[in-house]
């Protein structure tokens, strides 16, 4: 006897994007607005150190700090790393060095990119200068990068600065995008593949014998692996429902409509789906329903009444 070949697990691209906007406190607002105006600001700590980039609380004492000072746009590399293969969204598309730069007048270092011809042109202690972005909006990327600078490291006194600018920046856009390849695993692959044949499969727990659908490979009650595949449905019973009166954005369904929990025949867990083919105010617990597939649909579009008598409460009361 040969076992059936293991079907290839499914894979699909998955993009997760976060279009967050973030508000700035008084210190970050002054710093990022300053960058827009080609002015680099730091903040003084209680013990007289100048932090660049500035923060609102002293990292050592947690004391609130607000005394802004202006530092130079030239500085010294404190450490570096050569990045010969820039990745998406990094500051430069050509090979560059990541650098921590202590700007003249600052006591801490700022992370950014250094545009240099190669690793041999970079060393700790080298002098660098900010290259400003042509278009500046009040963001750390207003510094396009650093570039080598042959001027001296003449100690520059930082000068007090009010931090006041016209039209200050009060927030930043912080878009983030991550690319994944989603693989749902063995159990859910089987579920999705069965749906493509307009069938619904679950898995039976070897311990409690309950059939879970959709299957996830584990019985959530017993904490053991499930493997025995069981076809359920296609018909089922409405165990509970709600009437939706507010239309969701981009949803092509007229309100009010009914969303219900449906216990498919043979399943021990209810699925949820929309009910149609019956006036919304006539849907009830115990209603017998069956799936309606649309052309090319990858899951049932909705469920409609079968016309059978309603199920007895006792047959589904454990599944509500």
């Amino acid at each position: 006897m040969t076992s059936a070949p293991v079907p290839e697990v499914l894979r699909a691209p998955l993009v997760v994007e976060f279009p967050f906007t973030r508000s700035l406190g008084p210190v970050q607002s002054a710093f990022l607005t300053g960058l827009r105006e080609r002015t680099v600001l730091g903040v003084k700590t209680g013990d007289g150190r100048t932090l660049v980039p500035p923060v609102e609380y002293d990292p050592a004492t947690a004391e609130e700090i607000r005394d802004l000072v202006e530092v130079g746009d030239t500085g010294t590399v404190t450490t570096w790393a050569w990045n010969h293969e820039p990745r998406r969204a990094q500051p430069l598309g050509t090979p560059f060095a990541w650098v921590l730069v202590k700007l003249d007048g600052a006591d801490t270092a700022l992370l950014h990119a250094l545009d240099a011809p190669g690793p041999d042109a970079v060393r700790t202690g080298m002098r660098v200068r900010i290259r400003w972005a042509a278009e500046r909006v009040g963001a750390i990327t207003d510094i396009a990068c650093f570039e080598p600078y042959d001027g001296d490291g003449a100690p520059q006194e930082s000068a007090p600065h009010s931090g006041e600018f016209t039209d200050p920046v009060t927030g930043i856009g912080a878009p983030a995008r991550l690319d994944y390849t989603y693989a749902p695993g063995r159990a859910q692959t089987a579920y999705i593949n069965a749906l493509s044949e307009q069938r619904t499969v679950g898995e039976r727990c070897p311990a409690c014998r309950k059939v879970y659908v959709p299957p996830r490979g584990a019985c959530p009650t017993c904490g053991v692996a499930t493997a025995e595949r069981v076809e359920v449905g296609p018909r089922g019973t409405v165990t509970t429902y709600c009437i939706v009166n507010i239309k969701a954005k981009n949803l092509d369904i007229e309100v009010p409509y009914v969303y219900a929990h449906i216990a498919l025949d043979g399943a021990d867990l209810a699925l949820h789906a929309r009910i149609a083919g019956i006036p919304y105010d006539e849907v009830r617990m115990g209603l017998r329903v069956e799936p309606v597939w649309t052309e090319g649909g990858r899951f049932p579009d909705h469920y409609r009444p079968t016309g059978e008598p309603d199920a007895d409460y006792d047959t589904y009361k454990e599944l509500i």
Partner: protein
Amino acid sequence: MAPRKPSVMRPARDVAVVAFGQTDHLRTTDELSEVEMLMPVLHQVLAATGLRTSDIGFTCSGSCDYLAGRAFSFTMALDGVGAWPPISESHVEMDGAWALYEAWVKLQTGEADTALVYSYGKSSPGSVRDVLTRQLDPYYLAPLWPDSVALAALQAQALIDAGETDEPALAGVARRSRADATANSHAQLSGSVAQGEYVVRPLRTGDCPPVGDGAAAVILVAGERARDLCERPAWIRGIDHRVEAHGLGVRDLTDSPSTRLAAERAGVFERPVDTAELHAPFTSQEIVLRKALRIGDDVTVNPSGGALAANPMMAAGLIRIGEAAARIHRGASHRAVAHATSGPCLQQNLVALLEGDAR
């Protein structure tokens, strides 16, 4: 008020690691969902102790939704625990070492006597170098997308400039780790591994951890009962975790004062240790940790191969505690230090001191 010298914090209750399990760590596990990957190690630690789910007083897990790109993925993993009838459960969006810390605190309060701690991570669906940029400060760092290797490379160069290491010494750390990993059947990368090309100079592929999927679990038990469940329990004599400023330019990247402080509070420096399991995903980080923990050449460091042999995100730190405990269980160690890290360039550090009963 004058600053007080950090002192050793003595636990109120004796708590021991009595069982440890881990998966084989693999580059990809597409055929397994997270719960399917995790379940065998949960069953393994329960079987090792004879405990059933209903015997566990507290369950705590560590994982990170950003790795798999799915929200609340830990709730699905709970299917592997058997959460009915209802259990006492918690989760940290951190390495499982921090979940173990939470469980240890729970046992210290006396609210529970046994705890199941697990953690897992699937890095294979995404690009972990990019994913980890999202844990950085969103104002000054994240918009530049500095990846995890780049940040470690800045630290490595700082160490080289300070004369604390050089590229051949880093290659030596990599070679020793992968050679030791040949004795670890769960390791992803072992034996002779080429040091390779630069990824971000000065770090080469050999200086970097493998990217992979994996899970781990331990069981903690308080008091005398630990001796009933395990022939030689690994007692947690001290545990502490500390964090440093997130601004990389504020920190001295050649040192790890947070690790040193955590070790001091955990009592590591009171007597010599014989084993150290260090969570150092990059070769250069072992240099920093050895200094912070005052580890001499007489200490066995990462006999499992450490994170350079297998670095399943969110589990690799818990595995350090588990590996140290397992050595005590089998009598290969009497006093071991285990370390876990999180964040760029060793930003957050947890140190646990484990001891076996005197013979």
